[in-house]
């Protein structure tokens, strides 16, 4: 790389190489634009940089456990179920990247090429018309400037390329998509489905749609990806490219065009705003290794650093024109952050179906689409929750005694009765009082620490109680026994679905982005990650970020052609 301004000038800069940034990069590169992807973490190349991917359980020194010193040094990330001996290399460690918790918030991050796309649980449900209409109908946040119809073709577009396995369920509030064959529910999940659908006219149990190649199509083979082999060791990185990640899919695809420059170890400090031109001209980067500052320039800038880091970059992008952060005349930047309510679970046992068990593994499980307040307001809380549902059978053995009897017992485990479990995924209401801001302390790269002020509210507490009561009832109606509801009281953040702070809206006075994810007040800067979310709905959000990113990138290409940017 040369060092003249010209050498550091591109058509487009994309900040972040995770799920949303990967999609933006792919679209721009395919359209022939010279694209610079700035990624703060190291490079992670598909397969080559998955050191644990083919390890057998006995090849891990601690057989998957984490050393005590690692757990003690990382109280936040250690709470994440996916953080283990096989995956530590893909998670941010607490000490390396501190932040300020004014209220408890577990911020789970992945700083590397691919971001959290390596680690995600790959659940991909579409939003429905009822989700986009939510804020307007129920009078919270601001109206979404788009509707389901705007985004539906882009869902189809990203689903075809990413590869989504699912069944056509025909539900108006969880629209079908472009699916590869779904993974089946097991015998007890099917039984529960029948029981629920008989007992309630508006509740369904389906197979969770997931970003796995159950039956790869030519476009997937062309990406170098192959059929998912049911390993369910995805968080290590998949040698088959069986699940969607930036590393297996969008980034190599973008690279193949010859238009991609991927620059790892590039911490974006801020966006450079030019008052004369009335737009952004580039970004200031701190090199992760040398800590030197370097500027890069482009006509269009996409901010895809994952919701809260996107807020951080924009809040830190101050200028004479925008002293409170880029495009932030309204003062709304950093506010109305929301998340998903993952606090409660319900478990139980089922004594039927004794003649069956499961064989092999499956990268998804059952999913119960939201059934509360979908078509009209029915309860004493706003919005509702979806839920995961799974049934499984363990083999266990008595560990009493020693010698041959103990060994015989261990080597001949007994199949236990079926266990069933569910976890909630609730919508939270974005509020001004849930916000992030900049601390006066700075990190090793000269960036202010992010200060997080996010908490549950009364609506959340009511929703948790309703989920526990309703799921318990549904379990009991199905004849499940030992039904237990459990509220983990976990802090917000562990859902890893933090959203908002740079919300979309129709009015620049109450929102930052227009219906194209374009900053109202700085038209060549776009935000298409979770920061742009006006409300959260209940679905796992990343599929929506993909669709947003592809749609906005294609709009930006058109606007560039028209000379509008």
């Amino acid at each position, binding site marked *: 790389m040369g060092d003249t301004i010209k050498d550091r000038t591109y058509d487009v800069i994309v900040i972040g190489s995770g799920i949303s940034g990967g999609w933006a990069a792919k679209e721009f590169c395919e359209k022939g634009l010279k694209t610079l992807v700035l990624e703060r973490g190291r490079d992670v190349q598909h397969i080559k940089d998955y050191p644990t991917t*083919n390890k*057998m*359980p*006995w090849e891990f*020194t*601690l*057989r*998957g*456990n*984490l*050393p*005590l*010193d690692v757990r003690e040094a990382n109280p936040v990330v250690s709470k994440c179920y996916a953080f283990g001996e096989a995956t530590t290399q893909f998670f941010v460690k607490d000490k390396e990247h501190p932040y300020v918790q004014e209220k408890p918030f577990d911020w789970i991050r992945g700083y590397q090429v691919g971001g959290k796309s390596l680690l995600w649980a790959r659940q991909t449900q579409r939003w429905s018309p009822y989700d986009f209409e939510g804020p307007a109908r129920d009078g919270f946040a601001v109206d979404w400037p788009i509707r389901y119809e705007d985004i539906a073709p882009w869902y189809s577009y990203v689903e075809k390329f990413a590869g989504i396995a699912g069944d056509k369920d025909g539900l108006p509030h969880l629209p079908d998509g472009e699916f590869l064959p779904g*993974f*089946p*529910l*097991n*015998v007890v*999940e*099917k039984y529960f489905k029948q029981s629920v659908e008989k007992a309630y006219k508006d509740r369904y149990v389906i197979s969770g749609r997931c970003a796995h190649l159950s039956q790869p199509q030519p476009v997937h083979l062309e990406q170098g990806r192959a059929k998912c*082999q*049911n*390993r369910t*060791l995805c968080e290590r990185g998949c040698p088959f490219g069986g699940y969607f990640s930036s590393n297996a899919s969008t980034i190599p695809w973008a690279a193949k065009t010859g238009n991609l420059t991927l620059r790892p170890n590039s911490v974006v400090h801020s966006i450079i705003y030019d008052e004369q031109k009335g737009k952004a001209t580039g970004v200031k980067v701190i090199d992760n290794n040398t800590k030197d500052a370097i500027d890069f320039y482009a006509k269009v800038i996409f901010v895809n650093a994952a919701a809260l880091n996107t807020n951080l970059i924009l809040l830190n992008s101050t200028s004479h024109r925008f002293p409170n952060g880029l495009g932030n005349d309204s003062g709304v930047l950093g506010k109305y952050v929301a998340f998903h309510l993952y606090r409660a679970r319900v478990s139980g046992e089922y004594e039927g179906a*004794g*003649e*069956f*068990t*499961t*064989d*092999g*593994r*499956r990268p998804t499980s059952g999913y119960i689409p939201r059934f509360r307040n979908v078509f009209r307001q029915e309860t004493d809380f706003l919005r509702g929750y979806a839920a995961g549902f799974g049934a499984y059978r363990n083999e266990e053995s008595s*560990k*009493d*005694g*020693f*010698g*041959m009897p*103990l*060994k*015989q017992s*261990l*080597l*001949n485990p007994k*199949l236990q009765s079926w266990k069933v479990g569910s976890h909630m995924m609730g919508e939270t209401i974005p509020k001004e009082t849930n916000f992030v801001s900049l601390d006066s302390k700075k990190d090793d790269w000269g960036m202010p620490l992010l200060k997080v002020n996010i908490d549950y509210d009364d609506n959340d507490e009511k929703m948790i109680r309703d989920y526990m009561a309703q799921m318990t009832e549904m379990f009991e109606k199905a004849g499940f026994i030992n039904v237990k509801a459990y509220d983990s009281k976990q802090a917000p953040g562990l859902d890893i679905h933090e959203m908002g702070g740079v919300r979309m809206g129709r009015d620049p006075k109450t929102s930052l982005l227009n219906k194209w994810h374009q900053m109202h007040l700085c038209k060549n800067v776009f935000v298409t990650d979770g920061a742009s979310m006006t409300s959260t709905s209940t679905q796992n959000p990343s599929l929506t970020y993909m669709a947003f990113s592809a749609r906005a990138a294609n709009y930006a290409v058109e606007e560039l052609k028209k000379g509008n940017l």
Partner: protein
Amino acid sequence: MERRTAVKYLFVIAGGTAVLPSCLHKENKASVLLKNIAVTADQETMLAEFAETLLPASSTPGAKDTYAHLHALRMMDQCFDKDAQKKFTGGMKEVESMMKKAHNTTFAGASAAQRSEILTALENKKASEDALQFYKLMKNLTIQGYLTSKPVLGDIFHYELVPGRYNGAFPVKTIIHQA
């Protein structure tokens, strides 16, 4: 005060066997690299025999075949706090003392019957608190190491890295048992 309830012939003074002559030799070290606990080669041998008494070799592998005792050591060294580590090493020495007191021999040098006698006492909670803590930790970790080892998880239970299938209604009677 739990200690006082220990059966009389098993009553030992903590640390009674701490200074074995072999401990004085620097090279007398455990074969796994330990950062937080001190275990000599002799103690490692004792743990190996202890693990083997828990899970003896027969037509199927024993604990020693799977290095389950080394797994236990690594786990104790890296995954437990100081208090648990102290209980483990202290209890380990107490178990040696139990053997010494009962049969005037080391655990490694004892006969199978003598080892069984000590484990029976431990299993029946007839030992000091530290010895029982050691037993609980060592037993759980030996079982964990054994069940996740290649000879057991790989060769007996046929663990599959790449199953390539999911059957959600698999008839139970077709499960073939191994051992």
